């Protein structure tokens, strides 16, 4: 089997005195969608915070294509090719759509390709092209989500991480968001998805894991987990 793109081994993460993650391990393979599901407060966002460099694991390691990245600054991590679309979108509301996208290409790695990236993002999300000069804060939730994803794509990531992209969005929009994620995968992007919308997250995932109070409790393919009765009981109501 080829080396995974991202390899997380036994990381333990603390917030001050409180431990949030216990011996968390998983791999993300190139070109796949890997979903992490779990209820609120289980530690999903903590994983992403750690992967993007805002938190430092007190033990364990995180490797991108074999080189360690745990403990590096968020800026360096973006430069290495891991881009996060945070919970809440992370947009600069006072800046225009175009400016937000341009800033997506701020990391040195992606700067030379800025114009190309812009062109492909705008063709992927035509609504952004139409709203280029609008302040990001004035857009609808779905549009903002598109912008957030588009901005992350501008940095030419090897690994795209999405933190609860469906949060706060209407069901129709949620559908579009997940379709977009599938499209991105089809274009070759590797995606790490953290979601509360378990059904969608497992439906589109190649592989997934379940996290509960800071520990990974299950790993499997999306289909496997989707069919699993325990998961249904815990997160989706009883199986008919």
């Amino acid at each position, binding site marked *: 089997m080829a080396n995974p793109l991202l390899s997380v081994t036994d990381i333990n993460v603390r*917030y001050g005195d409180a431990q949030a993650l216990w011996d968390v391990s998983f791999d993300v393979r190139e070109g796949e969608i890997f979903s992490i599901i779990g209820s609120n407060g289980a530690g999903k966002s903590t994983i992403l*915070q750690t992967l993007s*460099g*805002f*938190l*430092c694991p007190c033990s364990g390691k995180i490797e991108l294509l074999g080189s360690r990245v745990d403990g590096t*600054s*968020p800026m360096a991590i973006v430069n290495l090719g891991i881009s996060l679309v945070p919970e809440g979108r992370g947009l600069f509301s006072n800046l225009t759509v175009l400016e937000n996208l341009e800033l997506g290409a701020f990391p040195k790695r992606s700067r030379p390709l800025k114009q190309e990236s812009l062109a492909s993002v705008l063709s992927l999300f035509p609504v952004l092209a139409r709203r280029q000069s609008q302040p990001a804060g004035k857009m609808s939730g779905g549009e903002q989500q598109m912008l957030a994803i588009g901005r992350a794509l501008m940095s030419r990531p090897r690994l795209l991480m999405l933190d609860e992209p469906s949060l706060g969005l209407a069901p129709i929009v949620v559908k579009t968001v997940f379709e977009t994620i599938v499209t991105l995968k089809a274009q070759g992007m590797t995606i790490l998805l953290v979601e509360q919308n378990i059904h969608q997250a497992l439906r589109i995932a190649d592989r997934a894991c379940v996290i509960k109070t800071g520990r990974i409790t299950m790993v499997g393919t999306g289909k496997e987990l989707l069919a699993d009765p325990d998961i249904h009981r815990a997160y989706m109501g009883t199986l008919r």
Partner: protein
Amino acid sequence: MTKRRLFPPIIVIAACCAVPFVFDPEKSYLIYFLFMASIYVTLAQSWNLVAGYTGQVSLGQHAFFGLGGYVVAIAWSRGLIGYLSPIGIIMAGVAASILAILIGIPLLSKLRGDYFALGTLGLGEILRLVTIQGGALTGGPMGLLLPASSFGTIRPHYFIALFLALLSIAVSLYMVKSHIGLALVSIREDEAAAEANGINVLKFKVLSFAVAAFLAGMSGALLANYVFTVDPQGFYGLNWTLYPVLICVLGGAGTITGPIIGGLLLTAVFEVARYFLPEIHPIFSGLFIILTIIFLPRGLMGLRVTGIAKGKGGAR
């Protein structure tokens, strides 16, 4: 507090009381030192209440200090009170706290953090300017000369200063250990949460602000009785805010002993600097603040100066 813990403070206080009788007030430098230190400690404790415990960084203590000085000066010049009149000093404190309540209510209800600090700065400036414009009442830019020009002995000033310092410490102790203190700290840490828990945030903020003003006003009144003149630059000068802040930063804000240690240290530093480098000594206050905050953000007592707004950025 257990009896054993009371011993050291009582001994210290007793020693301080004994000093003017053991040493000759005319010649002893120690008395002057402790006098000034007491005034600084009072100011520092008062600022500590507002900023260290309640988290409202006021940069306007000098407004209350100056007001206290002027109230006494004006009353004295008009013959309403006499030299070192306790009524005068208390009146000065009361006047300052009334002002604090009047200004505090609008300011504290609407302003947070920096905006509040700026507002208090503005207050100080307004008072200073109004005083300059005050004509015969306040003596304008030159200030007022008081009816006496020297004192027989510094003893009464010393004891009043000591009393004020002890009062400020006692008040701080009381407020800290009582439910008031709990309320103040919870306001400092998370105002919204405090409000949600039924704490009347405004009331407590104004309370600490007014108490601080009371103490500052009395200190100003005492100093007026010592230097026998009041003037806008001397009494409304920013130094009277700078020093308490510096003391608390040095000693550790948000503690009771911090301002005491800081006050003694600062007075010592000032006096040393004044002796060896008479012109440059004000420079040191600035340098000290900077160095202390950068290298000793926790002050000498090792306790953290809590920021009002948490800094941005992640866990790094």
